[in-house]
């Protein structure tokens, strides 16, 4: 009797909760396995003493030392860093300004369209942007004779803006407008309101946005491949080139370092971006 009612109870629970649909747990485990097993293997074999990336012999950090001294990797990493840092600073600045205009001014005609235009690059296939940018830059280069890494940095800045914009805007929308009004009420000019209240309070959003922009830039392949000129090989492009010639654990080592940096940044974004109330707690 009690057994019967127990199963009935379970049935009800299963019906309500998607997690308990038959087969779902297998799918979950399979997905997690496909996602993370390759990464684990990559990390594992970066510590392999052997040259092979499939046969394990013993633990060593040789490949890291080798990668560190590889001039190709060095210069690719430096280019990636240069492009990412400049693109991060510029895109975050523009994104901050855009977020301020779209949250801190009275609604104006075309405001929703501006927001859509800022976010649109996220919707356009990257290959389309890449080809379009390549052609566009080719025209400019031909007309002006200009050249150099500035073009790559510009392209990165542009596609990083929507990524930086999202967390900044979210943060601003979460901030109570009355704080800025209180500052104005206490004789702060608009500039001082921004410096003393808006900026410090929106900083977590700005930092998340900046880090997101950095990761997206460092990670980019398609646009860098199309837009980057000779001598502008970023790290992902270098790795891609190496793999064409056969994988060595050196590539594993570089990728692992890359992964480590990404994980650290994503964790930081998560920590900064956590919704922390900007309103003083109200008592009842």
């Amino acid at each position: 009797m009690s057994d019967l009612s127990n199963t009935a109870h379970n049935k009800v629970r299963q019906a309500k909760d998607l997690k308990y649909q038959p087969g779902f747990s297998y799918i979950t485990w399979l997905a997690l396995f496909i996602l993370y097993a390759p990464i684990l293997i990559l990390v594992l074999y970066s510590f392999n003493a052997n040259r092979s990336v499939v046969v394990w012999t013993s633990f060593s950090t040789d490949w890291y030392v080798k990668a560190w001294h590889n001039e190709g990797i060095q210069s690719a990493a430096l280019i990636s860093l240069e492009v990412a840092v400049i693109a991060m600073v510029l895109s975050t600045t523009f994104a901050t300004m855009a977020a301020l205009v779209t949250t801190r001014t009275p609604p104006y005609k075309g405001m929703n369209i501006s927001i859509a235009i800022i976010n649109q690059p996220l919707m356009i296939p990257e290959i389309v942007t890449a080809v379009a940018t390549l052609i566009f830059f080719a025209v400019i280069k031909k007309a002006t004779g200009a050249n150099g890494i500035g073009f790559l940095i510009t392209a990165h800045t542009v596609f990083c803006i929507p990524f930086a914009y999202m967390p900044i805007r979210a943060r601003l929308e979460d901030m109570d407008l009355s704080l800025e009004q209180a500052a104005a009420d206490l004789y702060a000019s608009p500039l001082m309101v921004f410096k003393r209240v808006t900026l410090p309070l929106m900083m977590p959003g700005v930092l998340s946005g900046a880090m997101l922009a950095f990761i997206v830039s460092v990670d980019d392949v398609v646009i860098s491949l199309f837009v980057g000129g000779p001598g502008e090989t970023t790290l992902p492009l270098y790795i891609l080139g190496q793999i064409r010639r056969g994988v060595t654990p050196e590539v594993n080592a570089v990728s692992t370092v890359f992964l480590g940096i990404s994980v650290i940044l994503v964790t930081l974004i998560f920590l900064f971006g956590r919704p922390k109330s900007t309103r003083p707690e109200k008592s009842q």
Partner: protein
Amino acid sequence: MLEKATRSAIEVRSTTKIYGNDRASGVVAVDDVSLEITDNEFFTLLGPSGCGKTTLLRLIAGFEQPTQGEILLFGEHLEGLPPHNRSVNTVFQHYALFPHMTVSQNISFGLEMLGIDKIEIRKTVSRMLELVQMPQLADRKINQLSGGQQQRVALARALAPNPKVLLLDEPLSALDFKLRKEMQSELKRLQNETGITFIFVTHDQEEALTMSDRVAVMKDGQVLQVGKPREVYDHPAQRFVADFIGDINILRGELISTKKGEAKVKLASGFVGDAILPIGVGDISGVVNVAIRPEQLSFSNSTNSTLPGIIKEITYFGSGLHYEIELSTGETIKLRQQSVGRSNTEFSSGETVNIAVADDAIQVLVD
């Protein structure tokens, strides 16, 4: 009446604020309001939710611009002056304290913005902390404070720059009953000590009556009546004001003679008594509503000039008794009896009684 010699701190002249495009499609939050608030006054805006109290404060503070009309601060026109150029400070409804600053940084903010020197600021901040009785909490972060403490910080922050007028938007509504009572007398004390004009917003009529020098009762964006608490309580001009402030009986009656504010009114039950006409209202005649406070009624042994009725319900409320009495006309009337010793006659439900009306207790209402 106030003397002409007293200075007006805030003058609101025929001011209207419409959110949206126009009267028809938008919201008329403040509707042709005129007010004169005197220097050093504790002035209260009282009214139900949505009647435009906050909007009126925001117009004075400069967060909104009037659609029509003008506002003067000590005779100086405020049109076009942004909030940071007005010597008016606000205590916000939910305090709006800066969460990234300590208590003393919050309090010193306004002073810093005014460019006052550091030593002076430090002195003022500690004086303010003293004033709101929390000097030991100077270095606390805002989220480490209780609601009542936040309230005090908000007050100290707004008072520190010594504004000409302090606006308080329901500053006590978030506090529990006991703390609210405490803060009410605290606010009164602060206003006396600082001599700053307070414009206080509340929807709590008792709070308004106990704290204010004068009260303005608002409804749907309009100011219905302005006066000392006693005047507004004893002589409400309109049915809304009478109903909103305190407990009151509204009865039908007929004006039988009027001259110079004095009138005689005949109630539906046949009772005839002296009545007071609303101030500043033109001719009224015929059938009107009249208001009588429950505490202005008492039991009488005489059948002469009294209202006969039957007791329907008796409620004990601590300091006295509350009776619901049905009149011969079918109307129900409330009578409140303060228990003074044990001398009060005890009545019980169903008993027939005669009710006497105190002098000047019958107030004629406009509608």
